[in-house]
């Protein structure tokens, strides 16, 4: 892991997400959980047909081979929370910001909608609100009060559910302790039925995420770009029948 001025005190956490491709079944539970947790609006059929979406996490599907020896593979994709994030230096108003815990935070009230960050992102995980989000009444009741509803002209993306991180940290602090490993779970991690997503502190060598990050199956997406992602993938198993 690159360690430079961007990375503050060693003692603080660096949040990482492990994606075990051998467990992922492409079931989309994470996608809906994220919508519910983060007040992500829906694009609607017309916009969807233009190829637009607002999901913060998507599951890519890759075909391999041809019939009858064909396989499909799933790969969940969300903001990689890069250590050297290409989206950060291009923002003219410092709306994309690197927080002390290694997250690429998006400060919605600073954002003026240049979409430079979205263009710079090699993972294409940022989505832009071209329209005012619509929640037909009383669907507004479902909105999570911990998360801002983004208005038109704002860029948004996965935050690793920072509100859930803060909630767990505050609860732990009130009890005079540090959050335990596994206590902090973004919505996608919490719901993932086969347990393909694991969240934790990569600066804590004993966390389950750190242990898995050292697996021989571990790799990171487009690592050669030097983005230093905090999302670490474990490659799917290969057993020949």
């Amino acid at each position, binding site marked *: 892991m690159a360690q430079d001025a961007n990375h503050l005190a060693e003692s603080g956490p660096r949040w990482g997400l492990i994606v075990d491709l051998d467990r992922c079944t492409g079931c*989309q539970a994470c996608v809906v959980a994220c*919508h519910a947790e983060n007040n992500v609006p829906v694009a609607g059929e017309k916009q969807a047909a233009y*190829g637009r979406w607002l999901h913060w996490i998507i599951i890519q599907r890759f075909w391999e081979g041809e019939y009858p020896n064909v396989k*499909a593979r799933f790969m969940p994709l969300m903001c990689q929370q890069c250590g050297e994030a290409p989206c950060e230096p291009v923002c003219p108003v410092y709306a994309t910001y690197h927080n002390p815990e290694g997250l690429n935070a998006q400060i919605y009230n600073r954002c003026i909608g240049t979409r430079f960050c979205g263009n710079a992102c090699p993972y294409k995980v940022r989505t832009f609100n071209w329209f005012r989000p619509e929640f037909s009444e009383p669907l507004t009741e*479902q909105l999570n*009060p911990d998360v801002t509803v983004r208005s038109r002209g704002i860029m948004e993306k996965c935050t690793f559910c920072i509100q859930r991180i803060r909630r767990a940290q505050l609860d732990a602090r009130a009890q005079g302790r540090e959050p335990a490993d596994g206590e902090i779970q973004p919505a996608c991690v919490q719901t993932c039925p086969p347990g393909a997503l694991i969240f934790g502190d990569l600066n804590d060598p004993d966390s389950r995420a750190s242990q898995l990050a050292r697996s021989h199956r571990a790799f990171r997406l487009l690592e050669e770009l030097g983005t230093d992602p905090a999302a670490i993938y474990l490659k799917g198993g290969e057993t020949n029948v």
Partner: protein
Amino acid sequence: MTKSISRRQFFRIAGGTAAATGISPKLRRILSEPFVRPPEDVLPGRATWYASTCRQCPAGCGIIVRVINGRAKKIEGNPLHPLNRGKLCARGQAGLQVLYNPDRLRNAVRQTGGRGSRQFEPLYWDAALDLLAEKIRALSNPGRLAVLAGLMPDHLYRLLSLLLESLGAAPPVIFDLHSALEGRAAAARSSEVFFGAAELPVYDVGRSDVVFSFGANFLETWMSPVAQSVAYGNMRQGAFGGRGLLVQFEPRLSATAASADQWIPLRPGTEGFVALALGRIIVEERLGHVGSHRPHAALYQDVDVTEMAAASRVPIESLRRLARLFADAEHPVAIPGGSLAGQQNGAASMLAVHALNHVVAQVGRVGGVFLSSPGPTAMLRQTARVDSFAQVQDLIERMKAGEVDLLLAVGGNPVFELPATAGFAAAIERVPYVVSFGSFVDETAVRADLILPEHTYLESWGYQVPEPGADRPAVSGQQPVVRSLYDTQASADVLLGLASRLGGRPSEALPWPDEISFLEETVRDLHGSSLGAYDADTPAGFFALWRQYGGWWSERELPREPVVAEAVIQPLPIVAPQFVGDERTYPFHLHPYPSVALSDGRGANLPWLQETPDPMTTARWSTWVELNPEVARSLGIGDDDIVRVISPHGELEAPVVVYPGIHPDVVAIPVGQGHTDYGRFARRRGSNPLDLVAPVAAADGGALAWGATRVRLEVTGRRQTLARLESLDGAGRESLG
């Protein structure tokens, strides 16, 4: 927060609640108070979590719901629940949109402008119940009352059965498309033949090292998908031995097959042949390590491997390799799935798959097949059984013949879910009075005279013994997490109110003043069990814990080994599949399959689920037709070209998805879209493949054979851009669009 209730109204409602406290015990106990006077330990703005049960499918997963200031904000899996262990699927996550759906009915209504007019006149509940009681009293004989229902929670089924019995009416006819697609009835029946118990088996996938799934999409919608997905994760990377292996046998590569190590494409209806061939090879070549195969020889005496290979078009070498793989495994398991049950030879195919578990002695062994142990939950267990399609057809015939004067539609949406040519929509016109209990105006409710909208599941009480169950006795408990939004009523309370109005035998059979007193009394049966994860000194304390835990379950794992029935040790039947439609006129097999997001269409009114991409095609908001690349090439069409799919019973048009993972003889269409009603998000979107399906049942009096229809294709020359996540131009995905 809310725009529909002003601050002043909010206080008024709260005041009303307080006033009601002294008056009616029913009101006092059922209303959840808004937090105007929060309890001392609850801070306004701070979340409270309520445990309940998901009702988005019949699995019965435990949920916990985050409630802030009296509003439900997030649904998560109940980490204590032994079935889903804190996890939840996409449909479960979307439950908030059932509760806060803008198209919910807000009170009891009468359709005044005639059926289908959509002119609804609100009714007071007392008037509505009086009206229904009057209709029941006016019946010339109780046989003229019919109830058609979808799968429902156990408490409601029990009350409904009691009421119908006391009236002398026939028990409810149970049908829903979700159950048909997962082959619930066929699975229970094959289990009865094989294990002597008409219960759904539990497959120990989590501790298995080789899983052969015959058309079971157990990671998507089949049976208990969340529990099975948790098990799948453990099978792949769990602590138990090495990495497990999954082989999927089915006509179309489902999302479950995408997770498999190998997909074996089969012609529809030949799954059983493959299972028979595998079994025969294992027995003949004495494979595996179970000792003597002599007792199994009789099972396969009529099976010829060469014939089976020819019928299924799976090469003998592959069969031999697979047989060895299965038999040599430590803990193999074979799962008979829903796509077997959709064929006319479904029962024989399912037996053939069960026999595989038997010949490798994996019945009741780690990583094999189990039944769920009822323990003390046996007395609560009164699970609705899915009826055979013949019974549904019989009801339709009776309706057509004018033998039904009053039809109650409780859950389910038969107009949408039955094949169009089964004639239900026409038959319902012949019934003088139709009552629907749905929360939404769906295709069935719009044909009703009276709609008594029930609470959504997040506003309801209830319980359900999950089936297939967990590894231990368990009951999922349901409780309201928010105060009911509108003037709706629990269907259980409607039945109780009806019974007390009718007096006589019904009121004796259903003596409870309200749903919750019935529930308290029933739950008391579990109080004092030594198995429980908790217990209390008093029944009231027990009921409080029941609500906190969201049900009751055993603390320890309690496996139940099935016993293979004597009757099984005889030659397995070999039954060829039969199809509706001539092979030359209709060269393709129609393969309808449940959508991961919309299931059988019940999720189509939730925008989150409409927006959720199909895992395989990444398409959203629509219907499509999947074709093998070779077939598409021979027709000269590609992605997004609209084709007309024609069966002997109907036709539909939809854009093509060229799909690399489908047998060339098969045309697959997802179920779920094509609603003509059911709210703004569902209406006028895509097409319903049930319009094509022939109304035939499996030969032995089974469920709807939804996979037994042949179709042909016509190119229309038109195009429609399907809304999909994946870009087709190869230029990469666009998120800034």
